[in-house]
């Protein structure tokens, strides 16, 4: 039995301790907002927060995160996440949208830690999140927009 604390709820799951957190979240907890893109921590589609830190759920076995506070896009609802989503929709950032759960989670973590990120800060925080639709330019603008709204 593995005990995972996801979005404040405790889930006791009878799963392989090696199972990546991504598949536990998607297949066993039933939350599918967190996406699968590469499985090797190269794309960021699976970004969740673990104790507030942006982390790649595809490359973390559940045994390594038992007992830690895991937050997925479904629970991204605080003032920072709301400001990020408001900027994302105002600027129509998403195209296919598949990467955007990860982009929103990565950006939320950035703004939680740094309310006035520079372009270099944004590059550093988001260069691990691929967007094959190349919405990068709008993401950058939206990060600044969200930061201003939070100021």
């Amino acid at each position, binding site marked *: 039995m593995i005990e995972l604390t996801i979005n404040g709820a405790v889930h006791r799951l009878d799963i392989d301790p090696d199972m990546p957190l991504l*598949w536990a979240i998607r297949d066993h907890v039933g939350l*599918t907002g967190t996406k699968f*893109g590469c499985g090797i921590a190269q794309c960021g589609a699976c970004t969740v927060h673990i104790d507030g830190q942006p982390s790649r759920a595809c490359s973390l076995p559940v045994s390594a995160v038992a007992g830690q506070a895991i937050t997925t896009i479904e629970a991204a609802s605080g003032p920072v996440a709301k400001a990020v989503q408001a900027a994302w929709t105002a600027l129509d950032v*998403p195209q*296919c*949208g598949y990467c*955007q759960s990860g982009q929103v989670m990565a950006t939320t973590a950035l703004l939680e830690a740094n309310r006035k990120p520079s372009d270099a800060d944004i590059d550093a925080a988001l260069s691990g999140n691929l967007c094959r639709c*190349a919405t990068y330019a709008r*993401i950058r603008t939206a990060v600044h927009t969200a930061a201003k709204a939070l100021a």
Partner: protein
Amino acid sequence: MLAKMMTRLANATQSRRSFMIGSAAVAGGLAVGFRSTEAASAATGGVTPFNAYVRIAPDNSVTVIAAHMDMGQGIYDAIATLVAEELDADWSQMKAIGGAGNPKLYGNAAWGGAIQGTGGSTGTTSSWERYRIAGAAARQMLVAAAAAEWRVPASEIRIAKGLISHASGRSAGFGELAAKADALSAPANVALKDPKDWVLIGNDKLRRLDSMAKSSGKMDYTIDVKLPGMLTAVPIHPPLFGATLTSFDASKAKALKGVVDVVQHPRGLAVVAVDMWSALKGREAVTAVWDDSKAEKRSSADLAREYRELALKPGLATARNDGNAEAAMAGAARTIEATFEFPYIAHAALEPLNAVVRRNADGTIEIWGGHQMPDIYQGTAAAIAGVPPSQVTMHVMKTGGSFGRRAVIDADVIVEAVAVAKAIDFRAPVKMQWTREDDMRAGRYRPAYVHRLKAGVDKDGRIVGWYNHIVGQSIVAGTPFAAGLVKNGVDMTSVEGANNLPFDMTSVEGANNLPYRFAAQKVDLTTTQTGVPVLWWRAVGSTHTAYAVEVFLDEVAALTGKDPYEYRMSLLDPASKHARVLKLAAEKAGWGSALPAGRFRGIALAESFETEVAQVVEIAMRPDGSFKVERVVCAVHCGVAVNPDNIRAQMEGGIGFGLGAVMKSQTTLDKGRVVETNFDSHEVLRFDEMPVVEVHIVPSTDAPTGVGEPGVPPIGPAVANAVFAATKRRLHVLPFARVENA
């Protein structure tokens, strides 16, 4: 060009239809579609000719049923805009879903209407009339219902922002009158709005309908489909293209917890399990023996060498031959020649391929997926399942990208999903989910090509002869499309006599329809055969033809000492759309003005899918010789700009997609084995490499043309031309990261 070929294919089987507008009752609402004179008996599943395009529910929501699949390009929003405009709906009441299963209704109008499909940047063109008429018909029925209800003349009824009203003070939402409207007969004819009355078409303030869902994890893609009892399958594909299964041992895998079965299917094996992780663990435990005697075992370097040799010979077919280019070049004051090499490239959409299949108790089949060619997949799936196509319902999901990958003709992932479900007797729904490695290894790449170009100029620097020989695989050869795609006034006999392969127009588009006025020109094609499966990749032929042409033209300009922008303009009809976008991009970018030290500009022009795009890039050289693309100024002519902000988004996306590809993306073979199988080795554009993009849309009253692909072709050559301006080096081998360019 693809559109023209598809039209030709379609026209062979069907003449243009006349539409009658129809309506049918749906649970207290209004539903509008067209009754095609040939479609009366064509209804299948839940879709009838009457509820095909627009449904209005009692809660006032207006749902458009889109004939085109949305892979991120925003076609659902474009279609909703067209309907809402004529219906005078409020944007906030609009919804959009995908439709399928009835080519008479959803056939791609830009391809002649015979089959449903999304591709060649035709979505808006195909929808332009059909969905405006549907919106106008629904509006007229609502007006008639209000007039009857309020006993006032129809001419006195107004509709604005979803509210039906009359000067007497009466008003109603659409939902209130939808059922009554539905009881009326549909109008035989409708008038469409004068463009000056448009409030939604061209409105820059409209936001996409799905941005919030996509920003909050609520958008469901095929990977997110959940069905009771559903199992997950992962494939085991042959290690080499063309290898076949000899034997396999699944005993260890089947003993693992969570593994349900290991089954054979026409494309290899699959491990079926209760969840993705169990399927992946099971896959590691399967041993398989493959017969690779007929497999493709060449390396990319072998193919490039062969292609380069072929490029030196005359082409096996000629796509265009105006004047006597060879003689003109022989007599030219100066000639110049260059050979370009393009790699295979995987589409690498972020959602790896997948499909979900369920057989219901009544024997009907349902398939969820990113169906870019739903009619073809429906037929393929029906044949495997052993049911008539009418018993297969296609649920069109939005997808995490595609870039053409989901328009595969052989329906690969769908075939696997259905075959696997059948192999377990359809006892549970099956989600076939490929991993990133499966997705990148399983073929269907942009074909590799070699282009050899040669030009001759007279003493004044004018081009007297132009020659382009393209060597590479055909995308349509061996598909049912070959028959419709090969005849275009080209010399078929030389092709048939040579190697019996069809002349694939997608190999030469963007090379044989240049807007430049050359005194004489010849475009040759040599179609090759390899075991590597290929496919259309965002912008198709123009992903390589535009690069070769626009870089080479820059070389000719440099040879003659002319400015690359001025030189292009001198070759264009000044009144053409090509000249207009080129001029606009140059003006907005400040072409010719001084730049800070270390900054350089490049320019390129390309028409694809009847949309003209010019781009001027600005690069900043770093001390180590690398560079960053800082700014791209893009001008586009795409007819009426239905959703201007989405046009900008598609240009931005096309630029980022194309830039990553020319800089670093490639799929290479090592003795037949795919080397780049995930994003660690198959590199794509990352966040910090994205330039600032500025898009200028040429105002136009022409019918709209597509924007999903045409942003891609110019970026590569524009950047390469800027690199030349900075370094005097020409980048002839793609991607730029290749050592040959160092």
